[in-house]
């Protein structure tokens, strides 16, 4: 027969073990949530102040190989480079959403948008943008056209766009779309009109 004192001690020990287990589980979940937040590399646009303005985004849709115009109200910085970077990062963020019609690879981002002059812009993407891009002539073309068209809608004087990956020239985006070429904005505008 187990004494009453021993039974009480045993009950306290079992209760303590359960409580500690629950506490450890909560700590583990909190650590996991923190880790996810650290690993979330989706591009974030820097906070800016000012009045919101309506900008035109050209969003690709793989289902029927089309590009649709979407109007977005947002606050944009004033310098052309920051403005271009913000626009393209918002576009990429839409492509990284789970419901996107034109998924880009995790971690895809734009490192910078540089204006050589009013007519020539250089877009520098990160390695994930190209390395994790799906391979295919049409899907790659949609990405390029969507980026060039969105930039040219915000900068009407733009006539040429060049793409770099991690600051370097690359032969193709993912085996098909030319990244050595300097894109002629008028030709892309015409293409997007046909794809809409």
């Amino acid at each position, binding site marked *: 027969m187990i004494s009453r004192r021993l039974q009480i001690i045993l009950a306290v020990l079992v209760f303590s073990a359960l409580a500690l287990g629950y506490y450890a589980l909560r700590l583990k979940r909190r650590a996991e949530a923190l880790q996810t937040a650290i690993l979330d590399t989706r591009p974030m646009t820097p906070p800016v102040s000012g009045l919101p303005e309506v900008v035109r985004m050209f969003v690709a849709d793989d289902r029927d190989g089309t590009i649709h115009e979407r109007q977005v109200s947002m606050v944009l910085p004033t310098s052309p480079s920051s403005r271009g970077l913000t626009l393209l990062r918002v576009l990429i963020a839409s492509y990284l959403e789970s419901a996107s019609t034109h998924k880009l690879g995790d971690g895809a981002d734009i490192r910078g948008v540089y204006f050589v002059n009013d007519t020539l812009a250089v877009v520098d993407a990160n390695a994930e943008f190209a390395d994790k891009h799906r391979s295919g002539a049409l899907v790659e073309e949609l990405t390029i056209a969507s980026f060039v068209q969105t930039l040219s809608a915000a900068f009407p004087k733009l006539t040429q766009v060049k793409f770099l990956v991690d600051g370097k020239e690359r032969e193709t985006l993912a085996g098909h779309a030319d990244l050595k070429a300097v894109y002629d904005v008028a030709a892309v505008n015409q*293409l997007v009109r046909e794809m809409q």
Partner: protein
Amino acid sequence: MLIAALLVTWLANLLAQPTESERQLRIFASQTTYVVPIVEHNGTPYVGLFEVLEPLGRVESHSDKQKWKLKFTAASSRSVEVEFTQGEARGKLAGVGYDLPAEFVLLGGRGFVPVTTLGGMLPRILSQQVQLHPGNRLLIGALGFSFTQQVRQNPPGLVLTFPSAVNPMIATEPGRIRLTFTREPVIRPADGGAQKFSDPVFQSSSVAASNGALQLTVNVASPMMASFSDGGKTITISPLPPPASAEVKPPPQNAAPQDGSAQPIATPAAPLPPKPVVVIDAAHGGSDHGAMLAENVPEKDLTLSLARLIQHDLEAHGVATHMVRTGDSDLDTDQRAAAANSAHILAYIAIHAASEGHGVRLYTALLPASAQPPTRKQFLAWATAQSNWLDLSGSLAGSVAAELNQRNIVVHAFASPLRPLNNIWAPAVGLEVTPPEGEKDIKSGAYLHTISAAVAAGIVAVRYKLEAAR
């Protein structure tokens, strides 16, 4: 373990780097003619069994560590399974033991067998007669035919007679004329083909086969020309007629009288202008797999299969072709454009494939059109060489689209930044094949054959327009 891994990597690289000048096996079947690269292993020539069978029916293969299995299903016969183990000569064919003359080689998931075993192995897989001829020529079915040679005196000529139409490449050089047969299953005559003629003009002939081609060489004493008759079944080699305007000079007074032995020295005939070729570029290859279209179906394999079909269909229409790659070669897009531009190019077709969407997408270069007409009298910018040809590229794409539409295949046409369209100095079209509407099987033989026939018909329909533009 590390040393073994390094050795396997080295061997894989060694076998996976065929170049255009490397050895190849030319396979003649009733439905198509194609080439498969030959690789050497321990001094023995090997070929990929998957590559040999792929154009002949449905092929599935998978490897599990050291074991490799292949299942072949022809259009109208049962399936046959083949099973081999890396490094072992003994395997299974249709459930029965089968011995290779040398060990089986498995590299990168691909199974390689010695070339010499094909004559014995393929009849059991294909249920057809198969003959492996010298010079790496494999004939599937009773396709082979030979020819006869007969010297004619009046007018002088050597008459070659074939049971079927032929279209060899003909080259002349001092003292001889060569006919090279690569498209037709011409085999060596029973007597070996070597003949000595008792004729002052036609001296002898010999037949040699190498690297998939059969070559007939005729040694002659004067410049020659070849003419075709009887629907291509007869080739007559005859002396070139003297120029009509040539002045006939009397022989010098002290010249020795001419006898039969004093023959003029053979001089080279005027070189014929090279025949314009359609350059077919099977995209990707080697370490560049392209998109994965399905499990174990990389884009590079499907593009090569379709390229071979298009080559066959074009040549059946009498259009000369040039394949940018015939095996699993690593080529970057600049090399592809350079290969195309250095050929006597009539048109360029780049072949791609994707698993998303339906039908066929046709691409022309995404460039502003140039107002200048195409001319070779100027330096061309590499990045915009195509801008002179956009109109004709559009015509070519339109013609191919019309043929595809006639065959109920959905077509979408776009301008595209597809490399290397911008760098091609000729009418150029990119083709991206996706699964047929309502289906997911992009590898269906009937579907690819239909696309190939439409592409060939589309090119043939604008052939004269393209030739006129050159």
